[in-house]
């Protein structure tokens, strides 16, 4: 990946986006797989908007609210444990602006694209794609299979887990 592809990064990690880079925030449940978060990032990247990913516990609405308050673009995406997703705007106080299911690859990409378009004050794509069918499921596989960085995935995962644990310990230590 060259510098032009710094569109997606995990907050507080090596792959974090450059500081002060305006980005949409994606906040998910800690169990959320990176491969799927990356699909949301695809939608943002195609629109030319960076996406910062962070994890947190809470329901979808809370996650989305936290995400938009953290984002300099004032647009945030939350994806809950149950796979429901929401786009929240700082300006819209009480409820998320858009709520939908995000189970399918195309839906995840739509989510990223819609959030990016909102940040650019452009119309969001017309239709939310229908939920998973086979073509969507198939599309994920070649990425995983042909991603040159595939060997590093396990290491990456281990690093993330370790970091999360360490973070947890640090936080735990602080509260005592």
């Amino acid at each position, binding site marked *: *990946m*060259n510098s*032009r*592809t710094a*569109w997606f990064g995990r907050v507080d990690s090596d792959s974090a986006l450059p500081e002060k880079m305006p980005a949409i925030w994606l906040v998910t449940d800690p169990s959320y797989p990176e491969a799927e978060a990356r699909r949301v990032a*695809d939608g943002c*990247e*195609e*629109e*030319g908007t960076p996406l910062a990913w962070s994890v947190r516990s809470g329901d979808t609405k809370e996650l989305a609210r936290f995400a938009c308050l953290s984002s300099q673009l004032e647009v945030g995406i939350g994806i809950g444990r149950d796979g429901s997703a929401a786009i929240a*705007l700082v*300006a*819209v106080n009480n*409820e998320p*602006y*858009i709520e939908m299911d995000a189970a399918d690859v195309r839906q995840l990409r739509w989510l990223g694209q*819609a959030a990016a*378009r*909102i940040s*650019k*004050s*452009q*119309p*969001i794509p*017309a239709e939310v794609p229908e939920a998973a069918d086979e073509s969507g499921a198939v*599309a994920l596989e*070649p*990425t995983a299979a*042909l*991603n*040159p960085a595939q060997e590093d995935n396990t290491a990456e995962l281990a690093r993330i887990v370790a970091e999360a644990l360490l973070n947890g310990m640090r936080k735990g230590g602080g509260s005592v």
Partner: protein
Amino acid sequence: MRQCVIPWIFERMNLMAIVAGIDIGNATTETALARVDGRNVTFIATGISDTTGIKGTLQNIAGLRASLGMALERAGFKRDEYGAVDVIRLNKAAPVIGDVAMETVTETIVTESTMIGHNPSTPGGVGVGLGTTISFEGIDAVRTDETVIPVIGAKHDYDFVAAKIREAIARGVKVAAAICQSDDGVLIVNRLPCVIPIVDEVSAIERVPLGMRCCVEVAPPGRVVELLANPYDIATLFDLSPEETKQIVPVARALVGNRSAVVIRTPLGEVKERRIPAGELYIIGPQGKRTVNVEDGADAIQNTILACCPVENIFGQPGTNVGGMMERVRRTMSDLTEIPIADVYIKDLLAVDTLVPQKVVGGVAGEFSLESGVALAVMVKTEELPMQKLAAAVARDLGVKVEVGGVEADMAIRGALTTPGTKPPIAILDLGAGSSDASFMRTDGTVTLTHLAGAGNMVNTIIASELGFESMELAEAIKRNPLCRVESAFHIRQEDGTVRFFGEPIDPSAYGRVSLLHDNDFMQPLMLGNINVERVRSARRKAKQEVFVKNAIRALEQVAPNNNIRLVDYVVLVGGSAKDFEIANMITDALARYGIVAGRGNIRSTEGPRNAVATGLVLSSVADGQ
């Protein structure tokens, strides 16, 4: 003459009668309900409903019942208490029918090349790439000295595609550009070591010819393609002869204004299309027959019509589009009136030049090119519509006495004269959906009248064709409502530049879009691709100008004393289209140049420009000694 809001609580006296004037128009059926006591007329309620069926037919009864029912209910009766009415007076509807059609005069057919010129919202990379098209699956087999442009189907994931292209580049293959079916242009180019132009969202990717010389251009954001929109640059890129350059001009023309474009040179004659000629119009007037070609445009047609005035009949060249249209109108009128088709005369025609987005024949991504076209509205007149037949049917259906009142134009004048500040001599412009009617009343009470082709329905046709959609409901909505752009979840910018804020978040489907602002602040987003407010606004205003302003002047020239429009002092606009938020102002403005006081009528000081004929029908019952 005022509208009574208190339900009628007195027993009807023998001298009093309830009279309902009902005007069945092309689009709406309007009712004026009044209590007539000797020579005193007190209007008590009005009703309006959509006309059912073509006016003058028995199908109108359903709309008539709805309109009358509404008036009865407002007057304090039951909705179906038709027996409360003593007399229904129907208008002697002008036996005119309008029809509108579009004729495309030019067409872009690409034969010697294939081109893709569309505006995907996010093409990848930037620059110009020249090479040979290859199938993406065959990229591994490409020799290292070749310059290629892979054509990528939607089934491949962008990561896979980028990896393959990286591999090929590493082997020494020159990948000059790419053409991609899915919306992955930016994603792919972000994963390559160098920036290449990528055109994406090419729907008919299978139609991109392989093994052909091809040029891809993507302009930087905010710019448009320069090389591929210039015939001489295309000639340079493909080594074209002067003759071949001449043939490439339609391609260059169709690519003007796009952010990304592809031109592929293919062997001669791959795309063929038969073209139906627009055809000729034969206009018969007192001095004989004149011929005008529809391709000559609206001005030529209108000048010929003027030269043939008063027009006796109009025919279209058989076997052409316009010939078909003329026959269709004749047949409709003939079916309706049971008059032989040969006795149906087309008395007027209005032509308006338009720009029609037409699909480019030979395009690959659903490209559109703005072609010139002509919108035509015609008006057919027969001896008389079968109103007596309708009156008898209504009398049977409702059990009420029904009369057919005077001529529609007379009734319109009587109604219009209830507008405060008017007196004869006066001209009335009745702007409806199907036709524009004008009448002029002199001081001595004599009336001249004319019916012209082209009204609200033609405006709809022009709006729909200029903006490239088919739904007439949408065209009607665009005609009636001002525009805005939703700029955030809470604010909109209206077409005049003012900004409005809302307390509740605006629906996401309207976010960022050009929308119609309906009366109750309801926003209807226009799903018309990358369209801006100015484009929709200018199409709407142009259609109204070309139809209503042109017709207002044409009509007044015909009814004015000595055909001199300057001899008219007062013009009152009535009819459904006069209610429009800008048509009346446009006409007021245009007629002010002739020193004419023109404005929207206000029937009975309460009804605005509506209900003129229905009101006139009631008033004439007194004059007729009802």
